[in-house]
């Protein structure tokens, strides 16, 4: 099932980061499974421990199943100054989860992340590939409700 992804790359270690990105994006649960790591290890002929080392080093990867929508709230100083703590509290309340957890309906996983480079619109969060800025508590309610409605 990973053959399609592997076909895009030559079996060199330098392609590991892209392959992991592709595998994670193709997984509806937004993560890299043990089985996938095994397949990558065989394809690139590198050790499982090397792959897990890389997987757990970078914040964009997950080794655990995540929700359909990964909510990443920026916690860096510019967003902190603009009230990201309050946004975090509100998100936890709306989604009913703690940081790193997935909501019961499997729709959302809440994560914190470092600066997204959109500080002019702080506080900011990213849901999957979309950036949402100038957040307020009301805005959070609307955004989450809208995504729920779409699902």
């Amino acid at each position, binding site marked *: 099932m990973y053959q399609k992804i592997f076909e895009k790359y030559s079996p060199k270690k*330098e392609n590991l*980061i892209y392959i992991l990105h592709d595998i994670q994006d193709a997984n509806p649960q937004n993560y890299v499974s043990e089985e996938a790591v095994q397949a990558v290890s065989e394809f690139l002929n590198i050790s499982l421990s090397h792959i897990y080392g890389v997987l757990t080093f970078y914040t964009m990867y997950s080794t655990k199943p995540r929700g359909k929508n990964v909510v990443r709230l920026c*916690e860096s*100083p510019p967003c902190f*100054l603009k009230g990201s703590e309050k946004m975090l509290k509100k998100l936890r309340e709306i989604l009913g989860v703690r940081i790193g957890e997935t909501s019961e309906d499997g729709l959302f996983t809440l994560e914190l*992340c*470092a600066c997204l*480079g959109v*500080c*002019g619109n702080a506080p900011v969060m990213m849901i999957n590939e979309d950036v949402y800025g100038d957040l307020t508590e009301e805005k959070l309610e609307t955004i989450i409700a809208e995504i729920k409605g779409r699902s």
Partner: protein
Amino acid sequence: MKFYRCHVLMAIDDNSLKAGVAAIETILKSELAKNNLTDEINVLETGGLGYFGTGVSMTVFPDKVTYVNLKEEDIPVIVNEHFLKGRIVSRLLLNPELTRKYNFNYQGRIVLDNSGVIDPENIEEYIGAGGYEAWEKALTVLKPTEIVNEVKASGLRGRGGAGFPTGLKWSFTAPLAADQKFVVINADEGEPGTFKDRLIMEGDPHKLLEGIMIAAYAVGATKAYIYIRGEYKLCIHRLEIAIAQAKEYGLLGENIFGRGFSLDIEIKIGAGAYVCGEETALIESMEGNRGTPRSKPPFPGVEGAWQKPTVVNNVETIANVPAIIKKGVDWYKGYGVEGCFGTKVYTIMGDVKLPGLCEVDMGTTLRSIITEFGGGMKEGKKFKAALVGGAAGVFLPDKMLDVQMDYNSLKDYAAVLGSGAILVMGEDVDISEMLWSVIRFFRHESCGKCSPCTNGNELLYKMIDDTRNGRGKEEYLDQMIQISEMMFSSCFCALGQSLLMPVKSAIENFREDFVKRIK
């Protein structure tokens, strides 16, 4: 070439896409067609204009007016009033006071001169604006050593944070005999509060490519990589287009201009790690490893990617190179101050009226950057502090507002220019809270390679967290400075060494904020 009466530039970036620019552009085009204006009014897409909170915006030339926060129903009004009758719709304009400050032609733009003016997805617009002339000159008139010497003489220094002289860096790699050399562009912009490189790449990707070509030719590299953050989707997209166009025009590839020089540029995508901004960690990541720093020496200039000589430069640094080669050292030295020539791109945010970015001469004072380009303090706020240089920066109090912003002047105050991020804080901000946020950031981003950084961050975080929760002790304050001094002298790379600046400046300049939390 076709002539148009007006050019309309639609800003396409993450913000405007979110605000529905695509639908509005479609409406604009159909309204123009309806009024038979398609042959008179040209609609173009360009990068972000450097404003924030302006939704969908468009600039009309030659009138040089910018309409902001556009809704679908505004378009017929603009077409009818402005394009048919020549009357500017003033209620939709960007605040005129702010427009003056963000005048497209204000002096000093070297790096951002094309951003928001040309279509970044069209190579001909870049060429039309004088682009790739420097590349032609470099390859056909100059010798590689002459280019290195020019860049050296210009005094250009690295804009990523450390301020290392660029020409000197190149001169280490250029004379080495190797079967392969590399140029690597550090576009892993992760310093909190920094988004200058994103706007350069979104607004003028060909400028970066031209700079890379010149750098590669100067040091003898036939392969270049742009290492970019995975989160910067639009930049990646525009750079891919730009590379394909440059190849098509014969500016990249085999035997360029028949001069026997070949070059290929490839994009490498990161996966989220602040430490990858450190050049050797970046190289490790490119090779498919954990992004932990290597020991230096050997420096990358001698042994870098795949053990080959590698020049690593920041996006903004390289974007200065075409202008230096094209217009010469004397022209370049007309900008900035002695020892620190050229301009610097700053990102201003926090409690200011107009968060955004600006490019000004090196040596401009902090006060003037905040008041002239940041629009001044927000209504009802009084200046308390500015965190200059990102998380790895310093907290400057109001008595330092008149300090000149350049590498040398800031050094006298034990401060750094860093990446050019300026986070402005009003009087109601508690600096101990801000330092908590800074330390939490470093604690998370510490890569785990060396123990002074891993343990030092853990200790600092415990102390600041206790202080924040009312469990602190006054002796913690001096101990925190001591710990960060120890980290400065013993950490493996700049990440751990950086803590000293925010910790020391916050505690020394704003001690009362911490004491208040303890008592």
